[in-house]
């Protein structure tokens, strides 16, 4: 490997890391905020409330993220109403399209993960909260959601890693994320060594996240592994 050449273009890869982290971080945060009401609606027995959310998660979990991104970035430009519409300054930019696609995708997966946490809630805890006279809002805020989040934590950790890895498709819509930086480097010097720089960067980020989630789980799920620790 040509290390001096790579070292002289370190800035490109740093830019890539920052783009990936910003994109993944922002979509995870917004996705989580969207996912919470979706998860609650998804547990409703009223089909008018849970039906639309079911359809949303079914579509976004059943198709590849790459296609979702292409539909938004390349697809929406087909319609003159959108090209002349108020949102065009955003929808013509790869960054906002990627953010939108990633956010919707992770919101769909996260909603199902949190729903799983809500459904496995012990009935007695909800009954106890009702018996104390808690309103529905208070029940969700104080009892159901904190408990559901804890149980959802391992699955959510996987979703975060999945999102980091899936974010590499951003490079296909001209964004200079980590893989985008590698591809730009390869194009400049007619090599493929950029990929060999990108891979260890993703590797380190992945296992930093894995370690981080292990720490959080050890703290928040302490009541579950008294014997093993």
């Amino acid at each position, binding site marked *: 490997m040509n290390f001096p050449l790579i070292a002289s273009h370190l800035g490109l890869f740093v830019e890539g890391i920052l783009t990936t982290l910003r994109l993944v971080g922002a979509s995870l945060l917004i996705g989580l905020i969207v996912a919470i009401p979706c998860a609650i609606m998804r547990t409703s027995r009223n089909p008018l409330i849970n039906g639309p959310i079911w359809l949303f998660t079914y579509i976004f979990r059943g198709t590849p993220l790459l296609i979702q991104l292409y539909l938004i970035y390349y697809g929406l430009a087909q319609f003159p109403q959108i090209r002349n519409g108020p949102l065009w300054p955003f929808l013509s930019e790869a960054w906002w399209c990627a953010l939108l696609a990633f956010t919707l995708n992770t919101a769909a997966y996260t909603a199902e993960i949190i729903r799983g946490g809500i459904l496995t809630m012990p009935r007695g805890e909800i009954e106890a909260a009702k018996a104390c006279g808690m309103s529905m809002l208070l029940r969700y805020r104080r009892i159901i959601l904190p408990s559901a989040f804890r149980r959802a934590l391992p699955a959510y950790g996987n979703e975060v890693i999945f999102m980091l890895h899936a974010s590499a498709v951003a490079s296909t819509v001209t964004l200079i994320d980590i893989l985008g930086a590698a591809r730009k480097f390869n194009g400049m010097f007619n090599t*493929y060594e950029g990929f060999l720089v990108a891979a260890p960067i993703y590797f380190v980020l992945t296992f930093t996240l894995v370690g981080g989630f292990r720490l959080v789980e050890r703290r928040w799920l302490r009541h579950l592994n008294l014997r093993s620790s």
Partner: protein
Amino acid sequence: MSLHGYGPHLLSGAWLTVELGLLSLLVAALIGMFSALAKLSSITLLRFAAQFYTTLIRGIPDLVLMLIIFYGGQIALNQASEALGWGYININPFIAGVLTLGFIYGAYMTETFRGAIMAVPRGQMEAAFSIGMSQKLAFRRILFPQMMRHALPGFGNNWLVMIKATSLVSIIGLEDVVRIGDMAGKSLHQPFDFFLAVALVFLALTTVSVILLRWAEAHYGLEA
């Protein structure tokens, strides 16, 4: 939404996606099984090699691995064939795609199969050996049928992730449903319609898969 006669073309791309997915699944299952047995083996070197493989693959995005294996493999092959005086060899992108996807998802299958093997009670294998079964026979008649029931849910999840990941082969130049939809959409200036059709193809594939997996779990799963 009109596909202007590109429908059959899209379907042939969809068929390629299905072929690619199923062959990759086969490769991934074989690699996963051997690697799971290696992880549980008493030979340190095998355990170490399998651990290295699964850790490395699961730490790097599938798209990055695919590009490394595809371009890196091509360059390595060129250098090797040049040294041997064979001239230029072009990798068949379909075979490269199958091997790459199989190699990547083999790492995920390893974890699924490892857990499933460990879920089969130790006494089963001990009993098999005690009545004189060979290693191979005990694996085929005792371990395999029992572990697959435990492996089914994880196996199904891996398949659902992998069939969607096949869309990435369009980036390395395979004429799958994504690439055909992309080209048709560009030439007719209807990118949305064609990507929507591609999305529906994937939705159909995942829906059929989920139904089949649910059936398989009802018949062969732990609750059956």
